[in-house]
């Protein structure tokens, strides 16, 4: 006998108790919730959300650790390092991103969705998927620096504040992704 959850199927009979992951929430409600978090950031802090900026601080701090002089001479890293009076990791976005990790974990635990796995389509090996994840991340990191922010800092934040550059950016993200989607279909579908 096979149920929807698979709990009663023969293969899984060994597993004593299975917590099935709950389905994801209604996207419109999630969007409203996310919008309220963003609004809270505007009202309380006078700034929006972000993600890539925290990793710029982290990378800059790392470069400083390994090659302090090189970091100080580089105009990009040195901007994140400041004048040295404050630890570069004592930064608003760094703490916000720490919160993102914690918030994601809490939500995942509550819905039984925390699982050590690799997300991919059926037609690609784990190894290749991870190579693509690294390449995609690299492009994303580079692109976000050029655009002065990523999906959170530009599209969400600047989108809600009606920033021209953010809207231009957002349209281009969708354009780039849709243009590339055909070539990446083996990874996802």
């Amino acid at each position: 006998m096979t149920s929807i959850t698979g709990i009663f199927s023969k293969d899984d009979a060994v597993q004593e108790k299975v917590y099935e992951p709950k389905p994801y929430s209604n996207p419109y409600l999630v969007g409203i919730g996310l919008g309220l978090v963003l609004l809270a950031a505007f009202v309380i802090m006078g700034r929006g959300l972000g993600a890539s900026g925290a990793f710029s601080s982290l990378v800059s701090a790392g470069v400083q650790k390994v090659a302090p002089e090189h970091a100080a001479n580089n105009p990009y890293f040195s901007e994140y390092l400041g004048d040295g009076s404050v630890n570069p990791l004592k930064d608003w976005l760094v703490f916000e991103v720490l919160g993102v990790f914690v918030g994601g974990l809490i939500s995942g635990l509550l819905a039984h969705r925390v699982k050590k796995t690799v997300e991919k389509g059926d037609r690609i090996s784990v190894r290749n998927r991870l190579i693509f994840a690294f390449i995609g991340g690299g492009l994303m990191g580079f692109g976000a620096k050029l655009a002065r922010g990523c999906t959170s800092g530009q599209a969400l934040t600047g989108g809600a504040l009606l920033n021209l550059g953010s809207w231009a950016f957002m349209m281009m993200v969708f354009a780039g992704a849709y243009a590339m989607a055909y070539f990446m279909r083996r990874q996802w579908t």
Partner: protein
Amino acid sequence: MNAPFFKFDMFSVDFSLVVAFIIGIGFGFALERGGFGNARILASQFYFTDMRVLKVMFSAIVTAMLGVFFFVAFGWLDLSLVYYTDTNLIPQIVGGLILGIGFVIGGYCPGTSCVSAATGRIDGVVYLLGVMAGIFVFGEIFPWISDFYYSTNMGRVFLPDYLGLSYGMVVFLVVLMAVGAFAAAEWGEKKMAAKKSGERK
């Protein structure tokens, strides 16, 4: 009400980090609820099978945009004190394209990959390493691309000013566009689901 609170010195810089952490928890929680810790869900946006990315993004933008608009209208929020970046049109367009390409190759954006890594996805962890590598490369070659990086600077550009429309009118148009996009997304998903079940037969 005088907002943004932080800009009116209602709390210290140290406390702002506590605020950052709490806001981050809300952000991460929402992303995970939406399914954005899962690269397959995110990628399906670009194959028209599940338009969650668009639905969540636009309903978030509309919610926050309406909130800001009304707070400003009531005189509670001083928009000039809310930070957003200058517009550097061409670098932002090129950056957006690179980011979009990276999105469909890597399966995440930086924020969602944090949630993905936090919920055990190895691809999310590897993706984050890639992000840091990309930032490192950007920083290293920055001296050679800084002219381009700073090009086409237009300062702080507020869309209503740019379009010569009132704030309220642009807000209304964005809401209209979002509702249209939601309708199109629902229609597209049904269409794709019908096509898929047709293939199975």
